[in-house]
C-alpha cells in the first residue's frame, strides 16, 4: 500500500527521498549504502554517548540553574545561536535557490506533466530546507541531548524543531529572493548575484562577531540593555521561549514559518514554472555571440595553447567563475578582520600574520581543487586530447600549469598585501599557496572524477568523490599549518611538513602508475 496519495506533496517528497537515497547508495562505487549505515550507527552512538555524558555529569552534581523566566543573558545566547544558524542557512539557501529552476534533472518531465507548479516548487524548497539544516542538526543534537540530560529541562528538545522551522523560512526567503532577482536581472546574472548575496549574508556573521568583539571586552552583556532600549526585547524573548519549548511561542513560530513557506509556494508557484522555462531556453543559448574572437593562429607551444584554452573556457562561464571564486571571497574579509584585530604584543602580531598566511595556502588548495576538477576531470573533449599526437605527460603538465597559474595570480595579490606588513609572511604565503595548488592539481590528476562542467556544484558527490574531497581538505589543512608556522618562523613547521610529505607520498605511491600521465 502506498503511503501517500498519487500526485500529493507527500508522494513527491517520497519520490525525491527515493532518488536521493539511491544516489547516496550508489556513491563510493556502490558502497554508499554501507557507508550511510556506518555513519548512522556512529551518529546514534554519539547521541547515546551525549545523553550518557549528560546523565553522568548530573549524577556527579553538575547542575544547571532552572531556566524559569529566562534571564537576559540566556535570551541573548539562545537568540544569538539561532540567529547565527539562521544566517548561515540563509547564506546557503540564497546561494542554491536558483537550482529550483536551473537544475534540469527531471524538471522538464515534471513541468510537462499535469502537476501544479506549486507542488514542484514546494518539493524543491523542502529539499533545500532539508539540506541547509542537516549539518546544524547533526552538529547540535549531541549538545542538546547533553544539555537536556544535565538540566532535565525537556523543553530544550524543541531546538531541533525550531532549527527546522527556521530552515523552512530560510528556504522560502531564499527562493523568493532568487525569483525577484530572476525578474530583475534575468537567469544568467541571477545565479551569480544570488551566490554573492549568499556570501554577503555569511559575511554579515563575521562582521557581527567583530562588532561583539569590539564591544570593549564586555562580551554579550551590553546587548541586554540595548535589547531593552531598542524595544526588541519582547521579540527576542518570544524566540528564546520557543526554542526552550514554551508551547504557545513554539506553536506561533511554527504557524509563522509554515505560513511564510506556504505563502511563497502559492504566490510564486506560477512564476516558478515561467522562470523554469526561461532558464531552459537560456541553457540552450540560441543567441549568437557576435563579438569577434581574436583567433590569430599564432605559433604556440602545447602548454600555452592548453592554458589559454582552459582560461577561455573558464572566463566565458561566469557562473563557474563565481562558484570557484566564492571560495576565496571570504578570505580578504577574514584577513582584514583578523589583521585589524592585531595589536598588543609582537607575538600576537606574528600569530596574526601566520594565521593569514596559513589561511591563504589552505584557500589556494581549495581553489586549485575547483579549477583542477574543471580542467582535468571535466575536460569536455578528452578523446580529442587522447587522439592528438602528444604524450599524456605533456597534456598532464599543461593541465597542472593551467590549474596553478590562475591560483597563483589570485593569491599573489593577497600575498603582496601581506608582504607590506611582513615580507617574510607574504613570501611564505605565496610559496605555500603555489606549492599547495600544484600538489592538489596532481591529486586531481591522479584521482579523476569525470563529470560535466555544469555539474561543478555536485562534483563532490560522484563515485569516490567524497573521499577525494576529504583527502584534499586534509592536505590543504596540512599545507595551511606548514605555511602558517613557516610564516611565524618556528622550526616546529617541520612536524606538519613531515606529515604532509608522508600523506602525499602515500597517495603518490598508490597512484604511481598514473604519475604525470594522468591515465586514471
Amino acid at each position, binding site marked *: 500500500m502506498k503511503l501517500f496519495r498519487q500526485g500529493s506533496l507527500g508522494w513527491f517528497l517520497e519520490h525525491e527521498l527515493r532518488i536521493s537515497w539511491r544516489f547516496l547508495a550508489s556513491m563510493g562505487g556502490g558502497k554508499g549504502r554501507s557507508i550511510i549505515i556506518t555513519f548512522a550507527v556512529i551518529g546514534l552512538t554519539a547521541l547515546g554517548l551525549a545523553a550518557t555524558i549528560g546523565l553522568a555529569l548530573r549524577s556527579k552534581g553538575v547542575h544547571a540553574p532552572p531556566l524559569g523566566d529566562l534571564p537576559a543573558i540566556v535570551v541573548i545566547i539562545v537568540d544569538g545561536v539561532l540567529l547565527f544558524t539562521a544566517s548561515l542557512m540563509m547564506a546557503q539557501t540564497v546561494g542554491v535557490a536558483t537550482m529550483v529552476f536551473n537544475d534540469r534533472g527531471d524538471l522538464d518531465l515534471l513541468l510537462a506533466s499535469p502537476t501544479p507548479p506549486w507542488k514542484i516548487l514546494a518539493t524543491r524548497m523542502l529539499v533545500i530546507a532539508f539540506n541547509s539544516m542537516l549539518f546544524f542538526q547533526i552538529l547540535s543534537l549531541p549538545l542538546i541531548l547533553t544539555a537536556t540530560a544535565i538540566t532535565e529541562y525537556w523543553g530544550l528538545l524543541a531546538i531541533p524543531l525550531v532549527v527546522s522551522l527556521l530552515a523552512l523560512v530560510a528556504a522560502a526567503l531564499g527562493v523568493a529572493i532568487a525569483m525577484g532577482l530572476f525578474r530583475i536581472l534575468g537567469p544568467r546574472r541571477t545565479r551569480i548575484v544570488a551566490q554573492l548575496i549568499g556570501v554577503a549574508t555569511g559575511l554579515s556573521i563575521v562582521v557581527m562577531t567583530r562588532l561583539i568583539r569590539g564591544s570593549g571586552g564586555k562580551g554579550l552583556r551590553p546587548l541586554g540593555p540595548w535589547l531593552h532600549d531598542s524595544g526588541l526585547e519582547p521579540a527576542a524573548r518570544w524566540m528564546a521561549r520557543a526554542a526552550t519549548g514554551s508551547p504557545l511561542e513554539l506553536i506561533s513560530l511554527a504557524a509563522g514559518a509554515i505560513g511564510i513557506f506556504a505563502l511563497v509556494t502559492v504566490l510564486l508557484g506560477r512564476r516558478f514554472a515561467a522562470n523554469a522555462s526561461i532558464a531552459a531556453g537560456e541553457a540552450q543559448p540560441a543567441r549568437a555571440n557576435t563579438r569577434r574572437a581574436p583567433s590569430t593562429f*599564432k605559433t604556440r607551444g602545447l602548454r600555452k595553447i592548453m592554458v589559454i584554452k582552459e582560461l577561455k573556457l573558464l572566463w*566565458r562561464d561566469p557562473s563557474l567563475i563565481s562558484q570557484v571564486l566564492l571560495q576565496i571571497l571570504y578570505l580578504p574579509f577574514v584577513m582584514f578582520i583578523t589583521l585589524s584585530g592585531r595589536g598588543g604584543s609582537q607575538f600576537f602580531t606574528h600569530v596574526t600574520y601566520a594565521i593569514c598566511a596559513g589561511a591563504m595556502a589552505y584557500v589556494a588548495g581549495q581553489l586549485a581543487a575547483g579549477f583542477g576538477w574543471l580542467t582535468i576531470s571535466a575536460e569536455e573533449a578528452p578523446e*580529442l586530447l587522447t587522439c592528438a599526437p602528444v604524450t599524456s605527460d605533456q597534456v598532464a603538465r599543461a593541465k597542472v600549469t593551467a590549474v596553478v597559474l590562475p591560483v597563483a595570480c589570485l593569491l599573489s595579490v593577497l600575498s603582496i598585501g601581506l608582504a607590506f606588513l611582513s615580507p617574510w609572511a607574504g613570501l611564505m604565503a605565496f610559496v605555500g599557496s603555489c606549492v599547495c595548488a600544484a600538489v592538489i592539481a596532481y591529486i586531481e590528476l591522479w584521482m579523476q572524477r569525470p563529470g560535466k562542467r555544469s555539474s561543478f556544484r555536485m562534483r563532490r558527490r560522484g563515485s569516490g568523490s567524497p573521499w577525494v574531497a576529504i583527502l584534499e581538505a586534509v592536505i590543504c589543512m596540512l599545507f595551511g599549518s606548514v605555511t602558517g608556522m613557516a610564516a611565524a618562523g618556528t622550526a616546529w613547521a617541520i612536524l606538519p611538513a613531515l606529515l604532509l610529505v608522508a600523506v602525499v607520498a602515500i597517495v603518490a605511491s598508490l597512484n604511481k602508475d598514473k604519475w604525470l600521465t594522468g591515465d586514471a
Partner: protein
Amino acid sequence: MTEAALEIRSLRKAFDAKVAVDDLDLDVRAGELYALLGPNGAGKTTTLRMVTGLLKPDKGAIRVFGVDALKDPIAAKRMIAWLPDEPMLYDKLTPLEYLEFIAGLWGVDPKVAAERAEHLLKLLGLWDNRDQRCEGFSRGMKQKASLAGALVHDPKLLILDEPLTGLDAAIARQVKNLLMQKVSEGATVILTTHILEVAERMAQRIGVIQNGRLLAEGTLDELRAAHGDGKDTLEDLFLEMTGQADEAELA
C-alpha cells in the same frame, strides 16, 4: 600493389567476460573509402577506438601506413583524425578557436592552419558563424565544426563513427561530399554507419563485422557474388550475413 593505410592483425579486446573484438584481421588500402558495417554491439567502435589509441587492445597488432600504432602511437596519431558520433567540441569556444586549438595540438604551422580553417569553414557553411560560440549550435552545426576540426591537420587516415547520425539531408549531403572530396585528394576514410545506402553508394570496399569477427569483406559486387544472387541490395546481403533476415521479416 596499393599501400596499406591500416593493417590490423589478431586484434582482441574483452571487457570482463564479454569479448568485443575477437582475433580480428582487417586491411584498408590507402586512398579508399572503407565502410565498416555490423549490428549494434558488433565491435565496430571498439575496433576503431583501438586504432585511434583510445583503447588498449588485449593483444594484436595495428599498423597505420606502416607505423606500429601500439609501439609509436604519437607517430600514428599524427596521421589519424577521429570523428565520433558525439562531436568532441568545447561549448565555450568559437569554431575558429576550436580549429586553432586542434592545429596547436597537431603542431600545424599557424599560417597553413589559418588558411585551412577558413577553407573548411567556408566549405561547410560555418564561416558566418566562425565567431559564435559552439554552445548555441544545432547538432548538425556541431558535427560540421567537429569535422572541420578533424580535417584541419590534413590527416592521411580519417576515421568516422556514425558521422551522419542526426544530421538533416542537406548537412548529410555536405558531409558526404566533403568525404568524397578528401578521398579523391588521396586521403583514406573509414566509416561506420547504420545507413546502408550510404555505404552502398560511397564505399569502395565494405567490411561486415559481427561478434568481434570479420564476416565478409570486399566490394559490393564481390559481396554479392560471394553471399547473394548477384542482384541483392547491401541491406539484403547485410541481413543475410548477420542472420537478421528472419528477425527483420517478423518486424
